[in-house]
């Protein structure tokens, strides 16, 4: 698979480390949201067959986190964003 890095251009997926569903960015507050919410966050997954937003870390490159939208049935990569941009669009961080 080739991931089209927003800054570095097309890069081999081998340069990246895969983490999983991009919803992992939305970590609940372990103290205030309760154990059930945190359990759901940590263990349960949508695991869709089709478009899947997922986190890839460019370990062998610029060490950025990407949100890659990929079709899990065909392995086709549909969209690549910097996780930083995704988070700031959602009103997170500085």
């Amino acid at each position, binding site marked *: 698979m080739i991931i089209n890095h927003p800054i570095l251009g097309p890069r081999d*997926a081998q340069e990246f480390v895969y983490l999983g*569903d991009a919803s992992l960015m939305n970590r609940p507050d372990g103290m205030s949201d309760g154990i059930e919410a945190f359990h759901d966050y940590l263990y349960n997954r949508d*695991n869709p067959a089709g478009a*899947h937003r*997922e986190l890839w870390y460019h370990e062998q490159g610029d060490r950025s986190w990407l949100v890659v939208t990929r079709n*899990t049935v065909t392995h086709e990569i549909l969209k690549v964003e910097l996780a930083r941009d995704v988070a700031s669009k959602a009103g997170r961080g500085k």
Partner: protein
Amino acid sequence: MRYSAFRVIAEALTGHRGWTPVWRDPEPQADYDYIIIGGGGHGLATAYYLAKEFGQSRIAVLEKGYLGGGNVGRNTTIIRSNYLLDGNEPFYEFSMKLWEGLEQDFNYNAMVSQRGIINLIHSDAQRDAFTRRGNAMILNGADAELLDRDKVRAMYPWLNFDNARFPIKGALMQRRGGTVRHDAVAWGYARGADMRGVDLIQNCEVTGMRIEGGRILGVETTRGYIGARKVGVAVAGSSSKVMAHAGMRLPIESHVLQAFVSEGLKPFIDGVMTFGAGHFYVSQSDKGGLVFGGDIDGYNSYAQRGNLPVIEDVAEGGMALMPAIGRARLLRTWGGIMDMSMDGSPIIDRTPVDGLYFNGGWCYGGFKATPASGWCFAHLLARDEPHPTARAYRFDRFLRGLMIDEKGQGATPNLH
């Protein structure tokens, strides 16, 4: 029709005109007592044991494609019961005992071959860990044997014993482990279930579940609505898709695992072997091909094919262990979709929906579990309580902190 040597001779003398189809192809009825979703190894075994051991009737197995067309037809055929933890080892040893009597039990040649499995040891720490595992196996009634370097050398003199980084220092052996003709397992269970009146309904994909007041009434399928008192889901690989019909999210990710077969070679590996320093396992099929595999590709996938980097990685593992295979050509590779659970162990449990039961999360160790998985799931469906060896395989173990984490690595969907 019961199969026997006498039958083969009688048919040979009469022109083989007496053989009949191995199972019926029935139309679905309006309702059943039990519907098993998934006509693979686990689903067929469940239906078989429900009918045979638990005396139940009015059972149907719904399969979206053809019987045995999923992971039971796509694995590396290894059976073993060499686990460490209390939640796992009694279950897998129960499975091993069922394998040992399986062919007589369902009157079908599944080519169960207890040719022995060795896990190679490459360091002193690994020897300690495998010694502990062997002791756990023995405590749970399985067999285990620690082999020193010379014994391994006597078995396989051509292994790379003196590799500078990963010298072979011995092995943990389970002589009762081995291989089984995987498709024949599905066929044997299918035939046994069919003979006991189970309806095996193929080309019948479940597209929805009818649930009212927290209770399941039946399933919507591509061949119409079918009512059921109880529904058991055994569709590992597609578990999240099917359970989404009941509004459930699972502690499972679907990943692709590749397997490989080389060209046919003369016999030189008579057992099953795993490399202890990389992820590589190998056996030799009766046709002579080396059957081997390694890691999952490592990203969510429902495509039954993987990518080249893992092929390279597995080939490197093979070459590090046995340089002799370097000139053998790879004949085929294929991929199967695994239910990767968050602690590497399966789930056989009730769900929050009354009458709906779940069996899945087998990671890439589901084949060896087939008989016990079917038996324990049938036990749960028929009696509404877990089988003693499958008590730990609960949904709520993650919430309660009772994970069955063989590797001791914590929550990640990349475990065995």
